[in-house]
């Protein structure tokens, strides 16, 4: 009896602690916009698992806050649905029910490969609601839902541009990339990258540490790359990427290329030794597309996009390099000219960039491409 009581108490403690961690988000999930109650403006709900990751989700959240702050008749509310990133179905479906059932919002935004399944379920459940998937990696089997516009990012093109820049910048003839996980969606980042490097005869090291958080491993993986002669290293590995930047910052002659947002700006003020190793960052401008979509909803033209799935590439400024002052000061003019030339060619469709998501036989095509000029 006593033992059972103890067990219950401990279980209760665990639960209440877990509840604490969710409690924080419940508070932030209660929106309090200044113009609540007015029906005339456009209302957009953005459902994200969490914000504040200083990376992927924050790029969108920041755009949402900016659109909300502008005096343009659009109010945006961000809901942090799943702070622990558990992808728990009941959490997500309840959140969708909260925002969809009253028809209060003109547009409901969500997405990302981990969570888009819930979005598609909601699309089916609330056919009169308009949705926007800000980053899809797979569409439902029966095709794009008729009440949703899905976009993704021409990451293959982005990788092609990063590869061109790396090839131009390297002095040793070897470059490297750290990719958090080895899967088809992540490899879309580097398919164009390895393609252009192999074409140019530049050797590359590719590392899959298999984690997005293990920073110490990221640092050692990168040190091993630098030992193999890599002097321009791109990180596509979330939090583990902090270890990559740290390792690059310890070598004066090694450049790091950031990802998702302008990482030079992120570290410029408080970690100059990190910022000074980041030549540029490969941007995935979810903010640009979000702002365009919000504008379309306001203009009433969004309905034309429903049922479509589109890739936002270089032409739409969906992807690109961060051209901050540091990049302009440290990247020689002829290199920038070569990069600009590549950007133009890719935009014009003059080069055919390989894309893992479009490979019919990924399991044989991808290793062939990946290992073409790879250094082990």
């Amino acid at each position, binding site marked *: 009896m006593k033992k059972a009581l103890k067990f219950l108490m401990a279980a209760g403690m665990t639960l209440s602690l877990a509840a604490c961690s969710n409690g924080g988000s419940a508070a932030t999930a209660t929106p309090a916009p200044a113009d609540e109650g007015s029906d005339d403006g456009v209302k957009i709900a953005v459902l994200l698992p969490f914000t504040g990751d200083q990376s992927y989700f924050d790029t969108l959240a920041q755009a949402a806050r900016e659109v909300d702050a502008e005096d343009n008749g659009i109010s945006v509310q961000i809901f942090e649905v799943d*702070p622990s990133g558990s992808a728990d179905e009941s959490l997500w479906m309840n959140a969708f029910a909260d925002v969809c059932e009253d028809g209060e919002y003109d547009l409901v935004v969500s997405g990302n490969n981990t969570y888009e399944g819930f979005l598609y379920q909601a699309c089916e459940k609330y056919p009169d609601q308009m949705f926007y998937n800000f980053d899809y990696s797979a569409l439902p089997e029966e095709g794009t839902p008729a009440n949703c516009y899905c976009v993704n990012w021409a990451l293959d093109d982005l990788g092609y541009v990063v590869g061109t820049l790396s090839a131009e910048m390297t002095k040793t003839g070897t470059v490297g990339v750290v990719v958090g996980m080895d899967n088809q969606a992540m490899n879309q980042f580097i398919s164009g990258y390895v393609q252009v490097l192999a074409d140019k005869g530049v050797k590359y090291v590719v590392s899959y540490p*298999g984690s997005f958080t293990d920073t110490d491993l990221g640092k050692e993986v990168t040190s091993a790359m630098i030992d193999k002669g890599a002097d321009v290293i791109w990180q596509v590995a979330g939090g583990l990427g902090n270890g990559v930047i740290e390792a690059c910052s310890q070598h004066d002659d090694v450049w790091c290329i950031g990802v998702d947002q302008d990482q030079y700006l992120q570290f410029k003020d408080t970690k100059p030794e990190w910022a000074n190793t980041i030549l540029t960052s490969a941007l995935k401008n979810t903010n640009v597309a979000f702002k365009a979509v919000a504008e379309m909803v306001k203009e009433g033209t969004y309905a034309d996009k429903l049922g479509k799935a589109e890739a936002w590439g270089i032409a739409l400024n969906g992807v690109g390099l961060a051209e901050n002052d540091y990049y302009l000061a440290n990247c020689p003019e002829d290199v920038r000219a070569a990069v600009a030339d590549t950007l133009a060619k890719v935009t014009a469709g003059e080069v055919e960039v390989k894309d893992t998501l479009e490979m019919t036989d990924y399991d044989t095509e991808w290793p062939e491409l990946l290992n073409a000029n790879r250094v082990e």
Partner: protein
Amino acid sequence: MLGNIFSSLFKLTFLLTVLRMATPILFASIAAFVTASAGVANIAVESIMTFGALAGILGSYATGNVWAGVAIGLLVGAGTALLIAFFSMRLGADPILIGIALNTFADSLSIFFLYLATGEKGTSASLLTPTLGSVDIPGIKSIPVLGEILSGQYILTYVCWILLIVLFIMIYKTPLGMRMRACGLNADAARTAGINVGRIRVFSLVLSGLFAALGGMYLSLNSIHLFSKGMVSGLGWMGIAANGIANGSYGMLLLSALLFAVFRGISIVFSQSAVFPVDLVRAVPYFAVFFFLTISSIISYLRIKSGKVEEQ
């Protein structure tokens, strides 16, 4: 291809990598070992490392002095250990359950405090934080090979090596260590002999908290120079596994901790190879854990069966 892999395993750089990566695992291992030798299980090593990592950074930022930051990290580590002691010894809860509770909420709680301090939930990059560096030892530095191993390591790596020796002397050569082991072997007998079992166990838990916090601070203050969400990533569990394999033997503890570091180093080589299936890369150190736990339990089973050791 395979030749490349093997040749990179027999280089000095690989040895240096392993030595660096061993530090947090060694800290976690002695954290688990010191409580186990006094007869309490502390499975909250992973969470104390997380708290220590964050507290070290926030303390260093708040005071502007990295050593004050280390002191605050140590205090938080000891405080968390006292919390375990309070729940398990005063309130009589199972220390395993306390450990589970702590591990469950460590990541979320650390993010909560990070958010309070910085307004961000990913890293502490926005805080201007003094951090720890490496130490070059003048005379030894110039010796070939040995100089590279013994000099130029991180400060907390040296701290770790010194602690390993100090802890050995404390546990095996002092009356205090003997009492600790007595509590671990048979608490009732120890009590009969006049040892205050509760006090000894609290002491061992606090030591464990300090070691784990140092392991966390190695990551945040010494290696990466910032706190990044989820950065402990299972290193604490490797320490607990090393303790499980050691089964009370200090030599086995260090050996298994070093083996985990070696396998973590091997996983780096594998992560960059075209032949090794990368899906398994992250599993390599854990396969090693599984393998060695199996071996060690077979050995102890055989010893019990042959009657050399009495079953406990």
